[in-house]
């Protein structure tokens, strides 16, 4: 199709929106409510262009044959500016400077907004959830969070309420987010351009614990943090910063720095054994992984029948296992009083914040910090992150395998479990460690493996919408891994925000790179794991392991 773009005749694809076409021709159009991963909503009216003399939103408009598009006439620029002025009128006063996830400054600069002629008039209360906090006074009604929750996660925990000027984002029936069927995945946070929705911060509590001389504050970092923390300090996506992270955390003043990868290895020992027990008994299948607290909440809210049918593995998540072992095994060994130990997890996740308060768990973890909070903590102590030397985790609970690292990406738990289950089941070693069928960023991945002559079919899904899709034919599989965030933990709700698909690809590459670089790549070969079982837990699935490392689930309301 031929159109006129800013006076130039060009050839364009009729199925692409004007925004796309402009981008292809090097014309940058400011956007706000538009996100590549979401359907256009055309609500903010910032991406206006002139189409045959009429103002239209470029994100939602397709070209017509021979049409004329003007992207920078005075009319366009004035209209964009006015809309941004109207949008920002309410936000500016509520917004404080300390707002890490603010990503519209570029857009504002481009628009050239000077001064706002309207007074702020909104006044809402904060919705202080256990994991996710909403501040409607900062909200600019772009609807990205609402669309993320509906389109990517299919949870529908939040939607708009009221109308006109009173329109605001609200959970079901204007309840607090903590009281509705929200899975606390935090994907909304990643998409919020103004920080009106963010994690419940626990930095203050952690700082207080660090100052308390009686407390031994132990930190443990999740597998994916090492692949994403660098981004918070201006490094390119996919930078692996394991050593710097450990040394920064030590500088902050933590007593020990442990590796959740070890918890992941133990999870695999327990989960692979549980799976083999099920194979021996002939069911119940599918067995579904339980490392992801977002998925657990989704199951409890929307698929509670799975609890009765025993599809869910009973394993706690890796950081909960490690937290528990820190307070039992490690405390015992070092002669410490468990009450004096404070365990802080650095997680890519907001749902983990909720998880650590679950009564079902008797959690061993006291506080959970997201990747963003961790970066804040490091910045708080004015540590020059980029120039730190590399250090190793504390060896007591800090030795891990490649199997533990891959937990950070979607498909990783399955891959690690299969490496161990295959060897436990057959007694032979796995010839190829990489399960390529379940790597990559596809929402749903499937594969199969033969263990003792039996075909084991497995599937992996990440992102709420994909989980719902895969659940429709779950009966085809024996073993399923679910992660609530697209891409797994590397795309978690606690990660650096506004990541693109390319960012996720790079983060995943870093994770698999870390796996390949490890000498030990199977969980059951981890010497510390072996030691813990020999000295403390006996064997996977033992009575003690059941008590400390396993949990149960409870049905929750659908609304």
């Amino acid at each position, binding site marked *: 199709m031929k159109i006129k773009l800013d006076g130039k005749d060009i050839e364009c694809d009729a199925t692409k929106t004007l925004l796309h076409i402009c981008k292809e021709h090097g014309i940058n159009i400011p956007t706000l409510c538009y996100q590549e991963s979401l359907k*256009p*909503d*055309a*609500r*903010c*009216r*910032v991406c*206006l262009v002139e189409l045959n003399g009429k*103002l239209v*939103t470029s994100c*939602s*408009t*397709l070209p017509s044959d021979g049409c004329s598009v003007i992207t920078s006439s005075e009319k366009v620029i004035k*209209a964009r500016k*006015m*809309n941004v002025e*109207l*949008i920002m*009128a*309410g936000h500016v006063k509520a917004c404080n400077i300390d707002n890490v996830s603010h990503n519209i400054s570029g857009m504002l600069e481009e628009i050239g907004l000077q001064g706002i*002629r*309207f007074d702020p*008039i909104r006044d809402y209360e904060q919705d202080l959830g256990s994991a996710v906090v909403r501040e409607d006074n900062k909200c600019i*009604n772009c609807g990205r969070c609402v669309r993320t929750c509906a389109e990517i996660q299919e949870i529908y925990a939040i*939607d*708009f309420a*009221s*109308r*006109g*000027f*009173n*329109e605001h984002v609200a959970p079901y029936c204007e309840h607090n987010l903590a009281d509705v069927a929200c899975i606390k995945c935090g994907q909304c946070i990643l998409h919020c351009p103004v920080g009106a929705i963010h994690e419940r911060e626990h930095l203050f509590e952690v700082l207080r614990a660090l100052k308390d001389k009686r407390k031994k504050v132990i930190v443990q970092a999740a597998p994916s943090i090492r692949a994403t923390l660098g981004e918070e300090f201006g490094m390119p996506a996919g930078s692996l910063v394991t050593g710097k992270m450990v040394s920064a955390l030590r500088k902050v003043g933590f007593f020990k720095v442990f590796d959740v990868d070890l918890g992941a290895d133990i999870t695999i020992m327990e989960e692979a054994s549980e799976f083999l027990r099920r194979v021996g008994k002939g069911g119940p299948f599918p067995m579904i992984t339980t490392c992801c607290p977002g998925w657990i909440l989704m199951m409890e809210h929307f698929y509670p029948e799975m609890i009765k049918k025993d599809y869910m593995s009973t394993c706690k998540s890796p950081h909960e296992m490690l937290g528990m072992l820190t307070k039992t095994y490690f405390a015992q060994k070092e002669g410490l009083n468990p009450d004096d130990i404070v365990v802080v997890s650095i997680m890519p996740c907001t749902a983990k914040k909720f998880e650590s308060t679950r009564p079902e768990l008797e959690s061993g973890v006291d506080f959970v910090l997201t990747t963003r909070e961790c970066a804040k903590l490091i910045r708080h102590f004015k540590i020059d992150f980029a120039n730190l030397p590399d250090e190793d985790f504390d060896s007591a609970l800090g030795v891990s395998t490649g199997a533990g690292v891959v937990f950070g990406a979607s498909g990783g738990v399955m891959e690690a479990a299969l490496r161990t289950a295959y060897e436990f089941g057959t007694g032979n070693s796995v010839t190829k460690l990489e399960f390529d069928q379940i790597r990559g960023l596809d929402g749903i991945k499937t594969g199969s493996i033969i263990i003792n002559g039996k075909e084991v079919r497995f599937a992996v899904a990440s992102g709420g919408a994909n989980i719902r899709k895969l659940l429709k034919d779950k009966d085809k599989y024996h073993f399923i891994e679910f992660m609530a965030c697209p891409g797994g933990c590397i795309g978690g709700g606690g990660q650096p925000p506004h990541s693109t698909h390319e960012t996720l690809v790079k983060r995943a590459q870093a994770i698999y790179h870390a796996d390949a670089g490890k000498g030990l790549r199977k969980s059951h070969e981890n010497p510390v794991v072996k030691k813990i079982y020999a000295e403390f837990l006996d064997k996977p699935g033992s009575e003690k392991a059941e008590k400390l490392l396993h949990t149960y689930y409870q049905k929750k309301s659908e609304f």
Partner: protein
Amino acid sequence: MQILKKTELAALKKAQELGAEKVIELLDKKGLVGRGGASFPTGKKWRFAFDAKADEKFVICNADEGEPGTFKDKFILENNPETLIEGILIASYVVGAKRAFIYLRGEYDYLKGNIEKVIKSVIKRSRLDVSVEIVVGAGSYVCGEETAIIKSIEGFRGQPYYKPPFPPVSGLWGKPTIINNVETLTCAAQAVLFDDWNSSLRLFSVSGCVDNPGVFELPVSVRLSKVLELAKPRGKLKALFFGCFGGCMPYVDMEMTPENVCGQDCVHGSCSVIVVDDSRSIVDLCYVIAKFFAYESCGKCTPCREGTVRVLFLMKKLKDMKATKEDLALLEELAHHIKNTSLCGLGQSATNHIITGLKHFREDFEERIL
């Protein structure tokens, strides 16, 4: 009145004899256009849905008549629902829909029982396998907008979304859907049956400073003086408002064709005329209308959500004689901005009253300036 002529299922029978394509051709020939305000040719709309390939199609009758000063659909729903239902059945037959909906304005809830009775009896006699369901709105003005109706029936928030795709291609639940106004569907049945059906006759809703308000059936090119003669205005005529969204103009005796009305920068719309005498100030009326739009904005797009309330604040200032020259300039800027950049018809016409008010009655505004 032509609109009250009953078709007694003969129209449906004739439509079935003619077949879908011929019915569409007939409507094209008779020149039936949408009576809800946009004046889109009905035959053309039906053809889009007829041509669309889908396993399921829907017909929606838009009875969400929320425009202040418009009450012609109510008149039909009260006095000739049989013909309306027949129109819906004809539309369903033509496009091949098995389910049809009447989206009834929340405030017309009291009509529901009677319409249901009529639906039952008409469907029973027609022996057509079509269900007609009544969905009662919850009192939102924007739900008269076709995409908002779709969202509302689907059970979502009644908010418009951007077009294309247009409903006849992808509408209710993503299926081809035709949405027609009550008057349009009633006329469709009559146009199919009666050879002498006159497409130029429209229903005028006249209200305001008149002694005889009501619905009048008149040719679309009727002179304004003739309309007022029937309605018997009180006092000295000052202005006419075409509903809330059509804008206002000083009284000029002209033919009421859409072109002439447009010439005054107003929107003809659904032929509603609110008569204003010279005891009123346009500013006060514009303030009331601004309040209406700020209240009825759905909140989706920025200019309408944020703009209409700012317009209201400025109008309040002006009304209370606290506004400055700059405020008036900002008001005018905002008014044009909202009109030019809003998503749906509501926002695009939410400031017509101010734009036309400033054009025709600027002195009313300026005398209020501080």
